[in-house]
C-alpha cells in the first residue's frame, strides 16, 4: 500500500447558519494533495478557500463529507485528539502572524511542543535549531515587538515547522508583508518544498500562487479548476 495522501477531501461541506438562511462556505469539495506537493488555493474572498484550510487544520469541523489528513479521518477525532492533530500533524501560518507578544521569539516557536508534553529544555533546543535553519538565530531572544513583519512571519513559519508536520498550511501569509518580504517568504516556501515539505497555501494573489506546483481555484465553495 502506498503512503497516505497528504490531504484527501471527499464531497466536503461546511455551512453556516445565518439567521433563517444558511450559507455554504464549502459546497462539496473533492480534492487530493500528494505528499511533497506545493499547492496554492486561489479564489476571491468568500470562495471558501480559508474555510477549506481551517478544516484541514482542524480548527473547524465540516458539516458534511469527509476529510483525511495524512490518512487520519478528522471526523473521528474528539476535541483533545483534534488539538493533538493541530500540534503534530499540521503546522499553520496566519496572515496576522499570531505570535504571543509576551513571549520571546524562541518561546513562541517552542509553544506547540509545550502542549505535546516535551520538556522545556528539549523544546527550546529544537526551537533554536529550527530558527537557525531559517536564519533567525540572531532574533531568538527578542520580543516580537522588536521584529519586522518579514521576521515575524519567518518566526511563525518556524513555529509551524517545529512539530515536523505532514503538511504546512498558510493562510494569506504574505497579506501583511511588503512585496520584498513577501517574495522572500515565498522563496522560503519553495526552499522547504525542495526539502520535500508538503505545502498548502491559500492566497488571492496570482503572482504568489504562480510559485506553487499546482493551483486549485475555488468559487462559491466549489473547486472550479484543479
Amino acid at each position, binding site marked *: 500500500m502506498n503512503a497516505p495522501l497528504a490531504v484527501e477531501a471527499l464531497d466536503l461541506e461546511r455551512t453556516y447558519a445565518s439567521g433563517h438562511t444558511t450559507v455554504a462556505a464549502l459546497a462539496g469539495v473533492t480534492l487530493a494533495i500528494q505528499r511533497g506537493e506545493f499547492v496554492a488555493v486561489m479564489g476571491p474572498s468568500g470562495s471558501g478557500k480559508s474555510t477549506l484550510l*481551517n478544516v484541514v*487544520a482542524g*480548527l*473547524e469541523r465540516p458539516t458534511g463529507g469527509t476529510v483525511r489528513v495524512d490518512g487520519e479521518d478528522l471526523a473521528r477525532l474528539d*476535541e*483533545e485528539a483534534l*488539538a*493533538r492533530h*493541530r*500540534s*503534530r500533524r499540521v503546522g*499553520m501560518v*496566519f496572515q*496576522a502572524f*499570531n*505570535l*504571543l507578544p*509576551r*513571549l520571546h521569539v524562541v518561546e513562541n516557536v517552542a*509553544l*506547540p511542543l*509545550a*502542549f*505535546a508534553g516535551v520538556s522545556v529544555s528539549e523544546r527550546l533546543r529544537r526551537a533554536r535549531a529550527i530558527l537557525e535553519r531559517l536564519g533567525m538565530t540572531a532574533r531568538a531572544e527578542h520580543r516580537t515587538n522588536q521584529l519586522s513583519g518579514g521576521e515575524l512571519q519567518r518566526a511563525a513559519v518556524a*513555529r509551524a515547522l517545529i*512539530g515536523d508536520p505532514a503538511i504546512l498550511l498558510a493562510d494569506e501569509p504574505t497579506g501583511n508583508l511588503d512585496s520584498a518580504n513577501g517574495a522572500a517568504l515565498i522563496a522560503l516556501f519553495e526552499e522547504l518544498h525542495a526539502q520535500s515539505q508538503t505545502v498548502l497555501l491559500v492566497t488571492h494573489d496570482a503572482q504568489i500562487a504562480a510559485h506553487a506546483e499546482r493551483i486549485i481555484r475555488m468559487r462559491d465553495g466549489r473547486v472550479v479548476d484543479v
Partner: protein
Amino acid sequence: MSLGNYGRARLRSALTTAGVAIGTALVVLLIALATGAEENVRRSIFSIGDLRLVTVQPFQPGANGLSAVPRTITDDTVAKLKVVAHVDGVYRQFDAPLGMVVEGGDDATIRPQGIEPGAPVDRGDLLAGRHLEAGDRAVAVIPGNIARLVAPNAGAAIGRTVTMRVGGAVKLGSTRIGGSGTPRDYGVKIVGVFDEQASQTSFRIPLEDALLAGAENRGLTADAIRQTTGYSGLAVEADDSTNVADIVRAVQELGFSSFSLKQVVEQIDQGFGVFKGILAGIGGVALLVAAIGIANTMVMSVLERTREIGIMKAVGASPRDIRALFLAEAAYVGVFGGILGLALGLAGGQIIDRIIRQLNPRTNPAAIFVVGPDLALGALALALGIALLAGFLPARRAMRMSALSALRYE
C-alpha cells in the same frame, strides 16, 4: 506559563492576592482566638480533677438545686455499679456531721469525710505521712492548715492524736451556729497531712469511723445508717475517660443523679464548636468576597487573553490544557494569598497578644491565639479551594472558546 502571566498583570494579581490574604488572615485569627479560649478553659478544668471520675449523688436523675428528690445509695447500689462495663472501681463515701478540732487554744471547723482506702479524693496530695489504708481505725489524714495548729509543721503533726468533736455547734466564718445532735469527742491519730489547696476543712477518716460517728450522733446503729440514710456519694472510676458516658448512663438507669467533669468538658467543647463556627463564618464572608474578586480577575483575564487563547488552541493546546492554565493561575492566587494570609494571621495574633498584655499586665499568661498545624494547613487548603472554585467558571469559559472566533477577536 501561567506564572508568567501572574507576573504580567502585576497590580491586578497583587490586589486579588491581597483579598485572599485578608480573608485567610481573618479566618486564622478568629479561629485561633476561639481555640485559645477553649484551650484555656479546658486547661483549668483538667487542673480541677480527673476526667475518668463519675460522682454518684443521692438524688434522682436530673437533680437540680431545690427540686432534687433524695434517693438512698446502699451497698446494693455499689454491687450493681461494680459489674457495669468499664468500671474500674467504686468508692463509698459517708460524710459525718460537721465538727470542730480544738488545739493549741485555737479551734477550726472540720468536715469528717469517711472514705475507703485508695479513694480518688485521697491521692497524691500529701505534705507528710501517708494516705488511708485498709484496716485503719481512729486515724485521720488532715489538711495542712489544721496540722499547723497541732504542730510547728506538717511532718511534726504525724503520730499526734487530736480530739475530733463531731456534731454540736460549729463555726462558719466568724459566726457560731448550732450543729446537729449532741457533740461527741473522738480521739484520732494523724497519719497523713495533705496540701490544704484541696480542702481546708476535710478530715479524711475511715468509712467505718464516719458511719459510727454519724450513727452515734443520731442514736442509731451504723447498719441502720447504711440502710436508711445511705452513703453520701460514690466515686466511680472508669477505665478510660472515653467510657464515662456509658457509666453515666448506667448510673441514671439505676435511678441516681451523677456528675462528671468529662461531661462538663463535652458541653464546653460543644459550645466552643458553635462559637468557632460563627467566627469561621465571619471570616468565611471575607474569603467569599475574596473569591468574587478572584472570579472577577479571572473573567477579565480570560477576556483580555481571548486572542492568546485562540493562538494557543490553533497551535495545539487542547481544551484541558487551556483549563489547566487558568486554574493554575487561580491556584497561584490561592496559594500565595493563603501563605500571605497565614503569615498575616500569625503576626497579627502576636501583635494583638502583645498589646493586650501591655494594656493589662495581669492577663492570663496562656496564649490568647492558638494556631495548630491543622488550622494552618486548613487555612491554606481553604484559600486554595476557594481560589480554584472561583477560577472554575472563567477557566471553563476559556476552555470552551472556539479557536477561530478567538483568533478573530480584537
